[in-house]
């Protein structure tokens, strides 16, 4: 508690700066500080409960996947059945990664590990799903004439969509590839910083961070591929036709 009280001195400094310079941020600063304290106290109590009760932990993972799918589906507006596409992609990709990581005992199969690892996986797979799905939708809208030129040459709709699906899957992978390439150079990632602050040695922290990054690379690659396959299928109509989205936004 003493550390929290000490850190509030910095909030007080921010309040003085705002007041003296007439920035008008005092109300927002106070509100943000109070909200953060209340929210984190509640979350800490919930996580305590979740860490003790495995069924609650499993329920939380499913809830996280559902919310992630809903968020991705909103980004993929115009894709028929966007929620089902996003849910399938996120559950499949993060599920495969969890089975591998927990099945091989790379991480202990306990709620204390399951929740944060599941959260990282679901969050990253959600981003990849949103990026790949919305990109493919946009490509099909923007390149309708090009897609039809391909169809008119006698290739299947799946084949005609291949170049766009490939580009879209790549889009979903770029953030994690860049993060992996630049790890330790531009930013120190969350798991690494968290472990160092928690008292682990830098070597231990680096090992866990590498495991997390490699796990994410695999999961996100699956999410990108599954999303583009499913989205492409949603736009293929009878008679090897590609039906562009009706509304995009």
């Amino acid at each position, binding site marked *: 508690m003493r550390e929290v009280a000490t850190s509030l001195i910095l909030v007080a400094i921010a309040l003085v700066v705002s007041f003296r310079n007439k920035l008008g941020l005092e109300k927002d600063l106070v509100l943000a500080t109070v909200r953060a304290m209340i929210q984190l106290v509640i979350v800490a109590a919930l996580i305590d409960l979740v860490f003790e009760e495995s069924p609650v932990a499993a329920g939380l993972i499913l809830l996280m996947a559902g919310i992630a799918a809903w968020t991705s589906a909103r980004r993929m507006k115009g894709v028929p059945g966007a929620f089902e596409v996003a849910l399938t992609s996120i559950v499949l990709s993060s599920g495969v990664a969890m089975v591998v990581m927990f099945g091989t005992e790379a991480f202990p199969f306990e709620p204390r590990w399951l929740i944060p690892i599941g959260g990282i996986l679901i969050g990253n797979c959600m981003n990849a799903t949103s990026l790949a799905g919305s990109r493919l939708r946009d490509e099909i809208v923007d390149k309708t004439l090009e897609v039809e030129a391909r169809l*008119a*040459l*006698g*290739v299947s709709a799946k084949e005609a969509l291949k170049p766009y699906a490939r580009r879209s899957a790549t889009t979903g992978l770029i953030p994690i590839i860049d993060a992996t390439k630049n790890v330790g150079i531009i930013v120190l990632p969350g798991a690494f910083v968290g472990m160092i602050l928690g008292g682990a040695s830098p070597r231990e922290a680096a090992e866990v961070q590498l495991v997390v990054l490699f796990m994410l690379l695999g999961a996100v690659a699956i999410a990108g591929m599954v999303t583009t396959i499913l989205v492409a299928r949603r736009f293929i109509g009878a008679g*090897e*036709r590609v039906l562009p989205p009706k509304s995009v936004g």
Partner: protein
Amino acid sequence: MTSLPTDVLVAEKVSLTRGGIRVLHDIDAVFERNEVSTVVGPSGSGKTSLLRCLNRLEEPEEGRVLLDAADIRSVEPTALRRRVGMIFQVPLLFSGDVRSNLRYGLDGLDDQKLVRALEASGLPASFLDRDAQALSVGQAQRACIARALVRDPEVLLMDEPTSSLDKDASARIESLIGSLVADGLTIVLVTHDLGQAKRVGSRALLLVEGTVVASGTPADVEERWPEGVT
């Protein structure tokens, strides 16, 4: 010995609705083998929609299209589109060289066949290695025609193929249409230019607001062209 029917493509009572609007009403049309049949009419009359029904880029909700007396829905769509090729208003070549464009979707084609298709389209063999994106619009349209010819089509659907070309390039495409028919191809040409229909077509179908208003020779349908409409 059985002879092939003279009508290669037939549309029977074809109706199409797009976005809640009926764009084609009960279209009956016959396109004869080894001829240039033109589909003419003012802008928005449904010419392109009719053309797209002939290779199943559109599915009419009523009526049917026959290719050599068989309903095209009974033909595998990819095979149908190789038999009934299509040239679009704007030439669309994919990134890469002309060779990769001609070979798109086809395995094991030798250069000899590609060169034959290029030459039939009025382009020299040296174009095979040219960057497809660096061609002039006229050259690109010819490369698109070559890309369709490589698939040995029986019918070529051409949707306003000269609308983005200058006068000289248009004249060359019109002359090319004549030579393709002489080589045994059947062509269905959509154009809003009645003069072009008269120059290259032996038959014409006049569409106005999605309905067939007249059919016959291009000169016959000219009399029925709606007044004050271009």
